[in-house]
């Protein structure tokens, strides 16, 4: 079904991006070294960017590379390097009780949902989207910008507010400071692991 919707070059691009995405995703969960896993994640993100380009969503592809590959995975690597996480397998420790059961349930629900979607609708065909065709003579960025800043303005602003709250909350939780004048001195002797 997929092949009939595609010309040959498009199919090659689709296949390439899919292979990149799947191999990268498998690498993230199977590789022992966390840095290698992060590198596989970059490969997946690149695959997604290629898929975006194939769907002529150029801006989204660029944003994908700049934001995810260029900043977020760098921060992942940053944390990995700072903590000096080594090769040692720590899979026998569950930081949250019952984590594994929830994870398995989540995977089953997701895969089941995907299969149900594929079976019941025509959404997952691999064909180029036709729900919102690119207007003639308008750039990708212009159309996207108009949509974000008019139709979806509230959602956009709510998202940015959420991000600000997350940043402020992270700073507050991670780093509490004393007032400028020192009053209590006995607390400084407390030592907390991981602080």
């Amino acid at each position, binding site marked *: 079904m997929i092949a009939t919707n595609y010309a040959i070059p498009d199919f090659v691009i689709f296949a390439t991006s899919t292979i990149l995405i799947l191999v990268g995703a498998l690498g993230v969960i199977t590789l022992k070294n966390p840095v290698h896993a992060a590198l596989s994640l970059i490969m997946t993100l690149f695959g997604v960017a290629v898929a975006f380009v194939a769907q002529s969503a150029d801006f989204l592809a*660029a944003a994908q590379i700049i934001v995810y590959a260029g900043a977020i995975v760098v921060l992942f690597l940053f944390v990995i390097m700072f903590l000096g996480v080594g090769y040692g397998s720590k899979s026998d420790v569950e930081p949250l009780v019952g984590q594994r059961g929830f994870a398995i349930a989540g995977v089953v629900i997701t895969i089941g949902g995907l299969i149900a979607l594929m079976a019941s609708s025509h959404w997952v065909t691999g064909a180029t989207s036709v729900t919102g065709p690119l207007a003639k003579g308008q750039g990708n960025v212009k159309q996207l910008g108009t949509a974000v800043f008019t139709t979806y303005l509230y959602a956009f602003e709510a998202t940015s507010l959420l991000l600000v709250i997350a940043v402020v909350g992270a700073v507050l939780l991670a*780093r509490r400071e004393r007032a400028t004048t020192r009053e209590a001195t006995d607390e400084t002797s407390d030592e907390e692991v991981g602080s």
Partner: protein
Amino acid sequence: MTWLATVDPLFVHGHVSGIDILILLIRLLVGFGALMGAVTMMIWFERKAISDMQSRIGPQRWGPFGILQTLADGLKLFFKEDLIPDQADRFVFKLAPYLALVPAIITFAIIPVGGTIHIAGHAVMLQIANPPIGILLMLAMSGISVYGVMLAGWASGSKYPLISAVRASAQMISYEAALGITIVTVVLITGSLSTHNIVLSQGGEIWHWNVIRLGFVPFIIFWIAITAELNRPPFDVVEAESELVGGFNTEYSSVRFALFYMAEFMNTITMSAMIVTLFFGGPAGWVPPVSHLRWIFPILWFVVKTIIFCFCYVWFRAALPRFRYDQVMDLGWKRLIPLSLGWMLVVAGFIIKPAWGLLMAAAVLFASVVLGRAFVLGRSRETGAESVLPPIGQRPLPGHVLRAFTDKEEVEE
């Protein structure tokens, strides 16, 4: 395939013929060759210019004025033994130099070197590629080039390169924000992301150049930020010899070191060209009214402007002392990002209507007063380990479990 015509006038006929492919290939090869040639010249130029500034002789042995010195160095590096440290992560160690070099090459592809010329009835852009995302490609590639430095430092399995890598990635990410925001001002005034259109909109007289249209500040911010992205002096805390031996590439030798070295100089040239493209009209300039010479003058203007900025980089290296690391972070986060944000708002306001621009300027002034107050408060704050309270709440694992865990691992090693 109709979208190809909007990207490159070669494909305006709707079909791709053999001669189109040939022109494309020639364009690619000439672009690549010119970049490689420019890199060898740039390395020689930097060594020669700095030695002149420091009253030394510099390279002088091979070729007139030692101009072939870089080739000799390249040959030497090719025949040196290729060492991989015992503690290194072999795959990532080998991958990292390419992650540094490839983005440097790709970024050069979007720079317009000249206007559009006609060869045998085909309109040929003097630019390797003109993708619709244009200038975003440069941001994406500078994001990728962080990995080259970061992974090189980590994969070396050595302490100083790791410190250097962490410094480098922190610095490059910090300055990317200011860089992106200043690019937004250029995109706002052009109304297009494509570098071709950015250059076209600056054609004509000198006051159409973005450096004047946008009021100098974005250019200054961009220049500082791009110098920090390049890790060149005065922002070369990444390879501070006195602190870190030689930076992230300490453990590299032979061809892999040559690749890093080439990437650094290629980036210097590309970013000089990028400054010229974004702010100085690219190939814009006076053209003689002789029809046969018309095509060469834009290229000459572009080359001259780029060489001026390349010289400035060499000059920086010879003249400026290195920043301290906390100064680098202060400049990036506390000065450049607020300034570029404020300037972007003012520019956006003036593009809509002068009244809006003045309103924005007032708002930015108010915000900078608040920010200035925050800086003063921050400076009077008590710092140091004792001023930080323990974090709120429980960690997922209690302290003694974590400690037992890490102790066990140390025994295993």
